[in-house]
């Protein structure tokens, strides 16, 4: 009995949250009704034309007006037209959505489903902006927006709902403004914080479908787990550099253990990538249209799920499966074909979240037993070198000032950023050895292992060797963008014996070029 306590507590918490929301909705509806009643009270008894006006304001079309209008049109009037008819959408909505409503895939029924739908978008960045913009355009009734970040300059090339004038504004508020301007019929709910195990259940509860537009592995697993536990279909996508991935998960959204349900994120990627290998858009870069495309595809898949025709009978419902089997779509902008569709397996037999052996449950979110950050590995700042192997940017500026040419005479400066970053900006006199070339550096005494190297890398290795042996006393400074890769490079150089058994000083510039900009030269470009 005791083991049911946490489960019951969670259930109560979730129901209380739903009740709070319903009470809020009721209070608002009452307020609106009261306000309109007050207006009419102050007007006193209404004349018949005022009654017509009231009806019109309340969204109806007074009979008197109808007769007049029809008479004015002086067309033969069918008996049906004389009857008062209640249309499910407003005139403006028919015009606004006409182009998609006349398609067999949507129709009036699909449009009404979209209008009744509540969709939650996690992350309002490169994916979330186009995804929410298209869902707003399509007439989804309620859009929930979750993001704890503010708009930055470096977002603008791809996050198309955020304009230049909104830099510094919370992303959810900026996105909500953009959505309102696209379609005022959409109701936006904003959650100005990052998603966490503590708030995920309450946040997801009221929505029909979740769109994962987040930017880190921990959130990916959190969102997927919560979707399985609460039975919500999930449209997930990601993008980096020139590639993107897209999946519709937990669809159909059957309970854990039901093998006819769609696979979840853990079924496809049971193990998170090593924390130190995670490349963000900030480090690796991303093309706007690539991430934009993936976000647009998310909106498309969401519309397909939301407008899907309901099974007619219970029998049909039991045998119901999505028309398409679960798949992973890979987009690669610079290869042919650009799109590849991978057929996925059904749920993994030992999945921690959606199988019969599931260990992830509603209460594990709130009890704190699920630590997503730990599961994905916390990213520690790189701290490989001792103090005497590191030099603050200011001190290195003094070294350059003392040098005969005010640059690198008397020492060697190696910039380990990738070539394309080096070409954007670098310190005069620095030698570029891209960090990626360090991986393929042959171990000492294995001349034969160079077979896999391209000639460009071999040339670089040769040039570097020349530079290192040029003068045994010359110190070697290593610099990168932020001061992490430079430490790894220094370690590697020492392993390769470049420090001549400790005689030659090899170290890095603490904080890299960002520190150089901050402490030495504020005119140096930051990208």
């Amino acid at each position, binding site marked *: 009995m005791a083991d049911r306590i946490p489960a019951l507590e969670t259930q109560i918490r979730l129901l209380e949250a739903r009740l709070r929301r319903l009470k809020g909705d009721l209070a608002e509806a009452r307020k609106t009704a009261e306000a309109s009643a007050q207006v009419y009270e102050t007007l006193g008894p209404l004349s018949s034309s005022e009654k017509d006006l009231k009806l019109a304001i309340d969204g109806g079309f007074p009979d008197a007006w109808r007769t007049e209008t029809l008479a004015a049109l002086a067309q033969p009037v069918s008996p049906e037209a004389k009857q008062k008819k209640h249309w499910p959408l407003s005139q403006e909505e028919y015009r606004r959505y006409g182009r998609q409503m006349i398609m067999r895939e949507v129709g009036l029924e699909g449009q009404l489903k979209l209008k009744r739908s509540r969709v939650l978008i996690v*992350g309002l*960045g*490169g*994916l*979330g902006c186009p995804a929410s913009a298209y869902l707003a355009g399509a007439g989804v009734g309620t859009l929930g927006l979750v993001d704890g970040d503010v708009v930055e300059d470096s977002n603008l090339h791809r996050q198309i709902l955020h304009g230049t004038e909104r830099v510094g504004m919370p992303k959810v508020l900026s996105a909500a403004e953009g959505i309102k301007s696209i379609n005022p019929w959409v109701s936006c709910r904003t959650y100005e914080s990052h998603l966490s195990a503590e708030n995920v259940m309450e946040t997801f509860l009221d929505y029909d479908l979740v769109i994962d*537009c*987040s*930017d*880190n*592995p921990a*959130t*990916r697993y959190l969102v997927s787990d919560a979707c399985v536990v609460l039975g919500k279909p999930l449209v997930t*996508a*990601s*993008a*980096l*550099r020139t*590639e*993107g*991935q897209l999946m519709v998960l937990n669809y159909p959204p059957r309970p854990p253990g039901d093998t006819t349900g769609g696979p979840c994120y853990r079924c*496809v*990627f*049971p*193990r*998170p*990538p*090593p924390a130190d*290998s*995670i*490349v*963000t*858009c900030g480090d*690796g870069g*991303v093309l706007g249209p690539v*991430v934009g495309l*993936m*976000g647009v595809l998310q909106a498309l898949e969401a519309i397909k799920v939301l407008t899907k025709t309901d099974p007619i009978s219970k029998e049909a419902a039991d045998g119901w499966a999505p028309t398409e089997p679960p798949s*992973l779509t*890979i987009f*690669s902008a*610079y*290869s*042919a*074909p650009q799109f*590849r*569709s*991978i*057929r*996925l*397996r059904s749920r*993994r037999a030992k999945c921690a979240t959606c199988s019969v052996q599931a260990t992830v449950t509603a209460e594990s979110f709130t009890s704190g037993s699920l630590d997503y950050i730990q599961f994905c590995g916390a990213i520690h700042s790189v701290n490989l070198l001792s103090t005497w192997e590191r030099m603050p940017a200011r001190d290195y500026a003094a070294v350059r000032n003392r040098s005969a040419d005010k640059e690198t005479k008397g020492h060697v400066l190696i910039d380990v950023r990738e070539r394309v970053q080096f070409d954007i900006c670098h310190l005069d006199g620095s030698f570029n050895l891209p960090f*990626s070339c360090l*991986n393929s550096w042959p171990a000492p005494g294995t001349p034969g292992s160079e077979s*896999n190297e*391209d000639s460009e890398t071999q040339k670089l290795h040769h040039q570097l060797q020349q530079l290192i042996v040029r003068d045994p006393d010359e110190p070697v400074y290593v610099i990168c963008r932020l001061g992490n890769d430079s430490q790894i490079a220094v370690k590697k150089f020492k392993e390769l014996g470049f420090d001549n058994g400790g005689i030659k000083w090899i170290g890095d510039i603490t904080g890299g070029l960002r520190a150089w900009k901050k402490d030495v030269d504020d005119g140096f470009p930051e990208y």
Partner: protein
Amino acid sequence: MPSKKPPPGHFNLLYFAASSSYTKKSVEAFKAPVSAADLFDLLEERYPGIKDKVLSSCAVTVNYQYVDLDDDGDDRAITIKEGDEVAIIPPVSSG
């Protein structure tokens, strides 16, 4: 660059995302046949470190089908044949 047919007696391996950065290639031909269970070791031999840093979290597909190469995965017994298209798909989480 269109994915070319592999030379006779070979299969093509496609690298995406982190696996492409690590190998600095988008496609590479390997001699067939190879047991799916040996695929990661084959790559580790050619690209030391790739197993821990990249492959451990990747999805693998053979001819557009997801295959499970876990220690007790169902598909370890599969043989990769001449002309097959195998892909290494690391999870990408950024957006």
